[in-house]
């Protein structure tokens, strides 16, 4: 009934998860081979740095203090929204992320729209016409979609729609036409998983007695299916969608490279290649927070989809 205690409890656990994430991401720095200061300086100076230079670099970036103290300093900064500066450009990492974020969000949102727009009607049709040609075709389509690697589909789409037909630009970001191909690429893979889920979930629901109640009111079959059945079939779909949002970021890394979109994924890959640890750290942390928040939202949405869900019950 009352969601307040549940929210408090859920936020509490989320905080614990995030604290763990921060420790792990900070620890990444120490797991990497070689002395970061030395590695970075040698790249910046393009020669072996001297001991004095390394010492100076450490002092400048606070690397000479004890580790827990470094962590505390870092965390304080992070909580203030300061993720540090890039080793190379001295640009603020927060600024780098905020610059790249809109492109990734745009891609993610468009992909989810594509995925749902494909998966829901296909899955529902497939379930309603179970065992028919429609069902088999959609099942086959889903299988192909799941099996096909993202980047390959991406290049294929570029080949057909950009190079041969010339309807969409090959790569880049900024306009809607440039968003279409990457969103379709990323959305299709997700749609394939969701289609199967919508189908099986709908099949469970289609036998329910309350659909007969709805039919006996004189409702059109379309309303019976898309209002009464679908709402009940969506609960498991939303759960998987939440998990898939995490996978979406993985996908975005690949897709952004294929389509040369300077988003979060590309920023991450570049940072990894440059051993730009603070940037890697910042993006990892940001992604983890986004993931935790998304899942929190997904959990809260259950209550809307299925009123029987008692959020949390007793938090103890």
């Amino acid at each position, binding site marked *: *009934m*009352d969601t*307040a*205690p549940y929210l408090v409890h859920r936020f509490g656990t989320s905080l614990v998860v995030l604290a763990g994430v921060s420790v792990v991401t900070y620890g990444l720095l120490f797991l990497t081979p070689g002395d970061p200061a030395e590695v970075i300086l040698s790249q910046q100076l393009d020669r072996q740095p001297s001991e004095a230079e390394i010492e100076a670099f450490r002092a400048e970036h606070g690397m000479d203090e004890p580790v827990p103290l470094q962590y505390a300093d870092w965390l304080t900064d992070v909580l203030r929204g300061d993720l540090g500066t890039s080793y190379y450009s001295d640009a603020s990492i927060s600024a780098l992320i905020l610059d790249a974020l809109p492109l990734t969000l745009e891609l993610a949102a468009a992909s989810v729209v594509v995925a749902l727009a494909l998966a829901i009607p296909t899955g529902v049709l497939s379930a309603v016409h179970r065992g028919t040609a429609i069902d088999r075709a959609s099942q086959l389509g889903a299988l192909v979609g799941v099996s096909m690697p993202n980047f390959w589909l991406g290049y294929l789409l570029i080949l057909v729609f950009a190079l041969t037909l010339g309807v969409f630009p090959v790569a880049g970001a900024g306009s809607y036409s440039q968003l279409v191909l990457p969103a379709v690429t990323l959305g299709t893979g997700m749609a394939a998983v969701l289609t199967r889920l919508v189908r099986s979930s709908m099949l469970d629901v289609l*036998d*329910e*007695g*309350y659909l*007969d*109640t*709805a*039919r*006996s*009111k*004189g*409702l*059109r*079959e*379309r*309303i019976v299916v*898309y*209002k*009464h059945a679908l*709402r*009940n079939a969506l609960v498991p779909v939303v759960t998987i969608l939440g998990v898939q949002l995490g996978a979406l970021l993985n996908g975005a890394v690949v897709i952004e490279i294929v389509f040369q979109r300077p988003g979060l994924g590309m920023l991450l890959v570049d940072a990894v290649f440059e051993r730009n640890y603070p940037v890697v750290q910042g993006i990892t942390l940001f992604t983890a927070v986004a993931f935790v928040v998304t899942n929190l939202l997904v959990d809260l949405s259950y209550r809307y*989809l*299925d*009123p*029987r869900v*008692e959020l949390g*019950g*007793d938090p103890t």
Partner: protein
Amino acid sequence: MTTTPPTLEYGPDDAATPDDESTDLLAVENLQVQFGTYDGPVRAVDGVSFSVEPGETVGIVGESGCGKSVTARSIVGLQEPGEVVGGTVHIDGVNVHEASDRTRRRLRGDTVSMVFQDPDQTLNPAFDVGEQIAESLKVHDQPERQRLLDYLHAPLFASRSDWRDHRKRAVELMAQVGIDDPADRVDDYPHEFSGGMRQRAGLAIALASDPDLLIADEPTTALDTTTQAQLLDRFRRLTDERNMATLLITHDLGVVADICDRVVVLYAGQVMETGPTDRVLAEPHHPYTRALLECRTSRAARKQRVPTIEGAVPDRLGEQPGCPFAPRCPAAVDTCQEGKPPTFERDDGTVRCREGVVFGESDDDGGPVLEYGCGETQCAREDSSTTSDTATATARSASPPPRPDDDTDPLVSLEGVSKRYQQAGGLLRRLLGTDRCLQAVDDVTLEIAAGETLGLVGESGSGKSTLADLVTGLETPTSGAVRFDGDPVGAAGTRTAATLHDVGVVFQNPRSSLNPRLPVAQVIAEPLYADGWEDQRRRDRVGELLESVGLSERHTERYPHELSGGQLQRVAIARAIALEPRLVVLDEPVSALDVSVQARVLNLLLELQRELELTYLLISHDLDVVEHVSDRVVVLSNGEVVEAGQTERVLAEPSHPETAALVEAVPRLEHSSQ
């Protein structure tokens, strides 16, 4: 899809056909419905014909599997399960199966409504009750303007004022069907409603379209007696007020006697007998109708075997000549097995049986084969075949079983036992101190003597099941003490094997209390495994148990879904007595079963009690069952014992209004009380 038999040709939407039956609101002619199975088509409905006139209440009765629900669903054109392969259904002159989707929707939105059986299934859990009633009102008002986005309440597409209006009228309807505080409850979701309230909401949905014909498929079967009585009363009033015709499907002859004008008796997809309720129940013409009436526990002497109909409703696969009831019919002769039995038209109904068996034609003993076997003769035969005469004699004798007021210590004793449940109250409520707390069982003191049967009755929510859980140790009391044989009963999880032995439990619904993935032998052997019996001994014991509950070796490898409800309940009983318990807790053991099967399970329970000297704690909302089986009765209301005493005394002269109300609520066949 639909093949119309040549003799019964109606134009598809031709209401103008001059016909004697044009006054009928509903005319079902030679309806045939089949299911496809791996073994071929099963004839679920096999040439059913009957009619309902405006304002009339007609009951369809029969055991489960006789095609009652399929008939009802076919009338409104609900496809699943089965396919209509012959015959016609006319509602208001419109042929339902040849009508277009649009016409059929019109019929459903205007003329005919349906109330379904299972209160957990009728309402959509995702929408509040008001919405579901409002929808029905909206369909009725604007049958042709059903836009998906409007019904999804999509902003800009939905006419919000319309919906507000319909919701307001939904509140009125809720009040009419007897939902208290309808204005508060309109926003509640189905899971916040009790079973009875959900059925009322289902009724409100059905009434929203102001139908001429209401089809109710076992609307009260899942409800307790008091709720059932209230709902039936409501049914009667509303159908009278609106001059609405009702087709009531039920297996409860008491309900039929209560509200139906006419009865249609269905067996194996065929109409066996039709006629006015009073006549059919008082002087049934067909042997099947008679057998159904005999099975009622209220007809048998206490603790005596209830007459049963042996055998089961056949699956109608392929061509089967003869009368479908012949194999179970005590009045059958050789000719019954061949050729279809003729249907006799009488002034007040029809009977489908061979000539000469038709009852009531002449005086009671006039007919040639009138010695009807389901009564005394069969009882005698069964008794001698299953129990020794002495055992019967003991049970029959007036000597009462040991009573708690004897010097012997009681087997189970409860002293001032209470059980409270904290309800999900939330932070605010807790702070304000308005936390809700459910007093499920309140200061109950009672004793159960060894060898007796104690009946526990009360409305749903009166704490019956909680009390049973306290006795079995599935729940621990908040205060007070539960003792078994003098020792306190701890939580089931903390008890030793030896004390767990002593109590067996049979639950209400065997389909959910038995693991669907285990074959029967393993289901029964589970307690034996837990007790560490070795292989051979365990197998022998399972065989023994199967035999004692009237099942055979061939059932051992079957899975629960392959068994009928009655067989499953036998399996559950076998499991409960596997370790030779002293006490068996029976939680509504027969309420999910048909009358004929119910009678057989009750007979089994009585027999086992005699043989194994069991003590029963019987929970039931069916007073007939309690009266038949129990030595003493305890009446619970709101968790408190309001009355306790000898069964005959309590039920005959109830001293507490709650008990009187329970007794009053039982639908009875007036004429059957001899």
